[in-house]
């Protein structure tokens, strides 16, 4: 820890507000006061869509902006909306996935705590675009501050006539309700989330039918991540062309990262898509803690990838990382210094999967246990080199045969850990 006078001398700490889209108001306005949100231009986009835009124009604008889902899978948001918007149904729903179960990810939490009205505004715009009269925010129960601030925000929006019936004489009705989850990792998967929301055990459904056609209570349902939706009002206000000036070709806008581990300044930041890992660690994370050497970063949480120093200058965006068999995932960045043992880290990741596997399908429930036994053996110094191949072989089989993304996920961290940090494993084996 540096002395306080050092901080005062340099003033080097910077909250980097200049590039922010999603977190522009967080840390500036009072999240519990709707008038402060309105004062910084809040609900302007809502007014614009209600008074000047047809629903399909809203879908088109978001589609053209190229906004990709920020929950990890990077599915184009506008495209998702375009499946549901034209459907004729007596009821459609928007569901906001605020389950945020990926270890080390707390971006959605800070968006909701810092600027709950931004999430509400985006949700309403999505609802208008696809013709949904009801939205649910599915949020994990641990997020008590988010829940209370969102509840307050919903009450205020109703009082101001921003939500409710015949909003601003447009003839559009909308209602937002909060559903509280019990903190199962699998409920971040959209169909498991819907099951849980309906009051059932949270296990995934078979797809198709996709939720966009048949989701909550078998009605067309758009499920979007918090960060994705928090981008929408800025896109409507400033236009898709403006949005495409941020980020890189094919992957526009910004990304909210949570930086933790062996860095000087852990926390969160928002950087343009395509910013390198080196820049994120040095500029936003304050560099390595105590002058230690960088060894690895686990990017994207447990379902993420272990990156070595060779990847420090690679552009961080969904497409570029895919070329390197890596993922951006949820945007969690766990930085590890030279003292960290990757075997221990991988053990912890696999233990997590074993604990969170929902038990619905055999490849995942048995696979995660077999993987755990293997890594535990290696960790205890009883492993063989062939066990490394076995870890990859089993996680590949799980990738091909598991019912949902949970069982497909261990492959990424396992493969990247073994390929990029083989020395750590061999040390334990010999």
């Amino acid at each position, binding site marked *: 820890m540096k002395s306080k*006078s050092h901080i005062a001398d340099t003033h080097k700490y910077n909250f980097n507000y200049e590039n922010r889209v999603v977190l522009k108001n967080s*840390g500036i306005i009072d999240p519990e006061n709707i008038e402060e949100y309105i004062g910084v231009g809040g609900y302007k986009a809502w007014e614009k869509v209600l008074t000047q835009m047809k629903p399909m124009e809203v879908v088109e604008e978001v589609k053209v902006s190229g906004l990709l889902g920020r929950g990890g899978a990077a599915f184009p948001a506008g495209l998702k909306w375009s499946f549901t918007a034209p459907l004729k149904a007596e009821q459609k729903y928007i569901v906001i996935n605020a389950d945020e179960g990926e270890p080390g990810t707390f971006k959605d939490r*800070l968006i909701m705590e810092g600027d709950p009205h931004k999430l509400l505004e985006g949700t309403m715009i999505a609802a208008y675009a696809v013709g949904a009269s009801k939205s649910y925010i599915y949020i994990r129960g641990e997020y008590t501050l988010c829940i209370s601030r969102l509840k307050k925000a919903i009450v205020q929006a109703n009082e101001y006539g921003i939500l409710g019936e015949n909003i601003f004489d447009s003839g559009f009705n909308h209602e937002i309700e909060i559903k509280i989850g019990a903190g199962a990792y699998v409920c971040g998967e959209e169909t498991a989330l819907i099951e849980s929301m309906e009051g059932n055990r949270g296990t995934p459904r078979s797809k198709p039918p996709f939720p966009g056609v048949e989701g909550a209570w078998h009605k067309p349902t758009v499920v979007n991540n918090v960060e994705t939706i928090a981008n929408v009002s800025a896109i409507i206000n400033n236009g898709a062309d403006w949005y495409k000036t941020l980020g890189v070709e094919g992957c526009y806008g910004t990304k909210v990262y949570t930086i933790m581990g062996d860095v000087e300044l852990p926390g969160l930041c928002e950087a343009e898509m395509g910013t390198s890992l080196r820049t994120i660690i040095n500029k936003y994370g304050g560099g390595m803690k105590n002058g230690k050497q960088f060894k690895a970063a686990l990017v994207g949480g447990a379902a993420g990838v272990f990156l070595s120093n060779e990847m420090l200058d690679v552009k961080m965006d969904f497409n570029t990382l895919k070329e390197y068999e890596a993922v951006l995932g949820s945007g969690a960045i766990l930085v590890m210094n030279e003292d960290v043992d990757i075997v221990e880290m991988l053990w912890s990741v696999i233990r997590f999967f074993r604990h969170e596997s929902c038990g619905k399908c055999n490849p995942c429930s048995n696979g995660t246990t077999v993987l755990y036994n293997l890594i535990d053996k290696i960790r205890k110094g009883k492993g063989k080199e062939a066990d490394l191949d076995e870890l990859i072989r089993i996680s590949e089989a799980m990738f091909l045969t598991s019912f949902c993304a949970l069982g497909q996920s261990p492959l990424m961290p396992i493969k990247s850990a073994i390929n990029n940090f083989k020395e750590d494993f061999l040390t334990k084996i010999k």
Partner: protein
Amino acid sequence: MKTLDELRKIREKSQQKITLGESNNRVKIVVGMGTSGIALGAREVMKAIIEEVAIRNLTDVIVTQTGEKGLSSMEPVVDVIEDGKPTITYGNITPEKARKIIAEHIVNGKIVNDFIVTMLN
């Protein structure tokens, strides 16, 4: 229930309130009340500030809260916003430090250099 026109008026009014504009307030103190801020004692800091403002009867000071700015290790974070002056962000604030900020910065106009994280125009 508000009409769109009323909403626009709130927008104009609120914009001024944030920059202090025509209101009677001289200083706005904003405490970062996100999860990491609260975990590191922001509620106690907030309480100390409100108490100190009341004891000193500082009627031209308003105290509000905000979410997280991003640097968790600098929490609790306190902003001091004054018209025509750079916004000062203090970091790692404790109730004692908060009382010192009120005494030195808010009352006597002397910025407490030791606690500064950033200064923005």
